[in-house]
């Protein structure tokens, strides 16, 4: 720790200052995060967040922030020693409002999906579980990528229809090609609201998406099983104009809703409130092409605590009752408005996708 601080102050700081000041705020954040590592584990998150808020609030130049970071870094071992004297029964769970500490020891479907996409927001437990699924369904990575590409084409399609508002429910971890990226290519002013019920996803999404452009991006925590909570959420109502068309994205999320929760009724309820010209984008895992393997994969997911329901084409078509399916209807996602030649392995993509319009 001392060596690191010496290095930072003696070598890195003058170097970075001469390179312009842009790196200093990152360096300050990084230093405070490093400093928190000498604290007892149950206090780390709290101090990282506490110091991050202080850094943001510091007036003056970037050097001030660095000075703050260096000072708390030097005293961190002392703070740690004091905190270790606090009796265990008095230690409160270090909450950050609704965002709990991420448990990296239990696999999580959003982070497994992120791994399939080649992302880095995953831990060893996720990779182990993901590899188990991949052992059953070798094409799973291809499926995740195909699904992501479908999301991109569907968002572009909606934007080209003149839709400027996007309600992305079941966002998942941010990855290149997310809804904002695609919608912005068509209209830089597109409004995007991300909804997820998963604290892991929310903390990432808030950090990455909303900070990029808070005026056009909203991230809220809500559960798809309660569509009225989504429709009546004050932040959503502030961000979206329900008098104008909205694209509702239910990409790779309805298969987490069991039949008991009536997914078709949920879609119906959401679309009921949308203005004419709105559309819904759905993709959904299916067992139609290999029921046995699909069932095994569902079981593997169940071990991580995620209940997945693979549905048939007929069951998925029911979600679009009373809506006007855009050609070619419900198809395997690679066949939905392909923008390149469909690769041979696309047949192995066990996801249906479709877009439907409200007239």
């Amino acid at each position, binding site marked *: 720790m001392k060596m690191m601080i010496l290095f930072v102050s003696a070598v890195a700081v003058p170097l970075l200052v001469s390179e312009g000041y842009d790196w200093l705020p990152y360096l300050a954040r990084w230093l405070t995060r490093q400093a928190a590592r000498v604290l007892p584990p149950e206090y780390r998150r709290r101090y990282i967040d506490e110091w991050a*808020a202080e850094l943001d*609030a510091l007036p003056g130049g970037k050097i001030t922030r660095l000075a703050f970071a260096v000072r708390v870094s030097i005293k961190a071992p002392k703070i740690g020693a004091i905190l270790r004297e606090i009796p265990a029964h008095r230690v409160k769970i270090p909450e950050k409002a609704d965002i709990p500490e991420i448990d990296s020891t239990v696999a999580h479907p959003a982070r497994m999906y992120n791994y399939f996409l080649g992302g880095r927001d995953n831990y060893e437990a996720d990779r182990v579980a993901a590899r188990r699924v991949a052992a059953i369904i070798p094409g799973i990575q291809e499926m995740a990528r195909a699904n992501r590409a479908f999301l991109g084409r569907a968002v572009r399609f909606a934007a080209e229809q003149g839709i400027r508002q996007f309600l992305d429910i079941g966002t998942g971890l941010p990855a290149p090609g997310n809804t904002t990226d695609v919608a912005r290519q068509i209209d830089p002013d597109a409004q995007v609201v991300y909804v997820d019920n998963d604290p892991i996803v929310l903390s990432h999404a808030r950090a990455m998406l909303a900070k990029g452009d808070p005026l056009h991006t909203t991230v809220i925590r809500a559960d798809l099983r309660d569509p009225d909570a989504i429709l009546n959420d004050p932040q959503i109502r502030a961000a979206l104009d329900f008098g104008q068309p909205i694209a509702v994205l239910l990409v790779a999320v309805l298969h987490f809703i069991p039949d008991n929760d009536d997914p078709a009724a949920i879609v119906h309820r959401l679309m009921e409130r949308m203005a004419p010209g709105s559309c819904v984008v759905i993709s959904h895992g299916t067992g139609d092409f290999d029921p046995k393997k699909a069932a095994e994969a569902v079981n593997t997911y169940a071990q991580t605590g995620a209940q997945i329901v693979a549905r048939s084409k007929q069951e998925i078509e029911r979600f679009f009752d009373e809506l006007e399916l855009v050609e070619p209807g419900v198809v395997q996602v690679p066949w939905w408005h392909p923008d390149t030649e469909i690769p041979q392995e696309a047949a192995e993509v066990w996801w249906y996708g479709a877009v439907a319009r409200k007239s």
Partner: protein
Amino acid sequence: MGLRTAVQTREVLRVLLERSQAEHYGLEISKAAGLAPGVLYPILAQLERDGWLESDWEKIDEHVVKRRRRRYYSLTPDGLTGAQRTLAVPLDRLPPQMARPLSPGWAVEL
């Protein structure tokens, strides 16, 4: 605890007692007490350890106000009594036993 820390702790207690609750987060306390953050945080941690202080997250929606929530400190009932008693003793009358470790009782024993 050395005399210097005792004096610095008094300053922190004074800020917590006299300034409004809205200013009871690290940066503002550090400014008001005239202490560097590296000095302040160990003192806050000690006061928390000894049950004189509590801390909790600011009750805001980070997404609405577009900034991170702060960690706010407040005196516990013990801390309130302790701070009042401590500050009632003028600095020039601080006895040498100030050099003992801080504990909830330390001010009372003066």
